[in-house]
């Protein structure tokens, strides 16, 4: 019990003094997950819109599949990307394994289904009367699409936030394709909040783990606050 309390006190000190290690790991986490989220947004939102507005055979099954992949295990994604980029894999020549780039790729793949699926839900959530109103106001096909997306913008934003949350909080893929490396240069290190917590805990550095955990929670809280503020504007 005493150790836990001490851990919290030490964690508070690490955060209050902007401990270099803790801040570096937090910054790397944000950069990698944010990059993955931006990439996934660029793919998922247009893809979700295309699926939602399109009519093609197997549409329902495709949406079902996407929804199933919401709970895609992170280690499976890690394994898949690992196989693709390891020395013997088809993309081995690119030498991506154990780099931040590999982590970005893995996290992008990981959050794509949930962001695509939630984009589809966001668009289906637009009131049918709004659709009819847009058409009755003389919207062209393109104007119609753009305005439906506009109506769904907050729900789509929430999809992006959820994607970021999943990216920054996953361990499995990050550790498999990133390797949890603490190298001399910031850019070639792959240690992020989740992998660091896992390592420090296993080494008995409870206070370090708690500090990193608090930072991770704080990031999640900050993202949530930003979203709420935008939605209430």
């Amino acid at each position, binding site marked *: 019990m005493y150790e836990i309390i001490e851990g919290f006190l030490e964690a508070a000190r690490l955060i209050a003094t902007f401990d270099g290690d803790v801040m570096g790991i937090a910054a790397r986490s944000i950069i990698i997950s944010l990059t993955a989220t931006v990439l996934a947004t660029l793919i998922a939102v247009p893809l979700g819109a295309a699926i939602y507005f399109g009519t093609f055979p197997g549409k329902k099954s495709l949406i079902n599949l996407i929804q199933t992949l919401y709970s895609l295990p992170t280690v499976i994604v890690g394994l898949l990307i690992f196989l693709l980029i390891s020395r013997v894999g088809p993309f081995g020549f690119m030498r991506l394994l154990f780099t931040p780039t590999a982590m970005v790729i893995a996290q992008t793949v990981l959050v794509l289904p949930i962001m695509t699926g939630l984009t589809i839900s966001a668009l289906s959530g637009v*009131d049918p*009367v*709004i659709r*009819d*109103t*847009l*058409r*009755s*106001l*003389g*919207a*062209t096909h393109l*104007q119609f699409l753009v*305005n439906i997306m*506009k*109506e769904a*913008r*907050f729900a789509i934003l929430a999809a992006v936030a959820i994607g970021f949350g999943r990216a920054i909080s996953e361990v499995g893929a990050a550790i498999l394709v990133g390797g949890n490396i603490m190298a001399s240069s910031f850019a070639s290190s792959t240690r992020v909040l989740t992998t660091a917590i896992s390592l420090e805990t296993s080494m008995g550095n409870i206070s370090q783990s708690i500090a990193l955990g608090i930072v991770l929670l704080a990031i999640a809280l900050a993202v949530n606050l930003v979203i709420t503020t935008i939605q209430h504007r």
Partner: protein
Amino acid sequence: MIELDNVSKQFDGPAVLAGVTARIRRGEIFTVIGPSGSGKSTLLRLIDLLDSPTGGTIRVNGTDIHANGEESLRIRRMMGMVFQKPAVFNTTVTENVAVGLRFRGAEERVVREKVEEALAMVGLADYGERRARTLSGGEMQRVALARAMVIEPEILLMDEPTANLDPVSVEKIEELVLRINRDLGTTILFSTHDMYQGQRLAHRVGVLMNGIFAQVGTPREVFTLPATREVARFVGIENIIDGVVVAENGISVIDAGGIRIRARSPLSRGEQVALCIRSEDLRVFLEEGGKTHLNGNTLPGTVASIVPRGPFSRVTVDCGFALSSVLSWKAVDNLGIREGSRVTVSFAAESVHVIRQE
């Protein structure tokens, strides 16, 4: 202006519209009245090109609007539509109203001017910067009306726009509809299940029942001379009695289950008819006090029930068939009638509207 020619629409299941035919004239307010589920919304949606008919044609200014896909945007842009459920875009009131103009590529200066005008027209001049979602249902519906009118449509379609609103908001929307029609000359097609609203607004009324117009006419025609038994019931005629014409001599005599009723009617002997008598045209007297209607009807009966209805009482008299009359409370007191009282009911032959039964 709008010609409906044998228009039908079938979704999965029975036909919603089964051959609707009517001409809507330029500059008139035409109300489509009918019970819920009679196909009013479907008809308006077909005219606004939101759905395609299964059969028949709809012509606007002579053009078959569903014939040519490329023309449909141009045709739709001649029309504005307000829907039953108040729905606004999640932005400011001004931006809501501006949408149609922006779709048409209007200049920013023009947009600003016209939106201001439109908001002033619906009495929301100071609401421009408000978020539309924060408004009341009635205010939202006025935004929807401004949004539809800002593009200066030739035709305004309104699909039960007041069905979900409070009485004050309903009155405001009705005022606006009348003013828009009067000042701008917009042809307005307004659907409602409220027959009195149909009557208040319309130059002409179409009664939509079982997928067709059971009757099209002025409110006066529809309310006093309903074309069918169903229309008579829908427009609130309480006394509808079946009978057979047994004699004709300027005034017909109709046998209704052994009781003879005189009525003005061109129908000839042997025709099966339904008689419509408005409850406000019936007089109730104590048995001995009644004066006989010359060439009219005086029927003895027993008071079956007296039911309060607002400031009036609905007195139902059993004369062999039930006849309901509406009397003030005071009149009921003065007559001293109660259930079981022997009375006479009298009404003029002119008060009886005769419908031929199919």
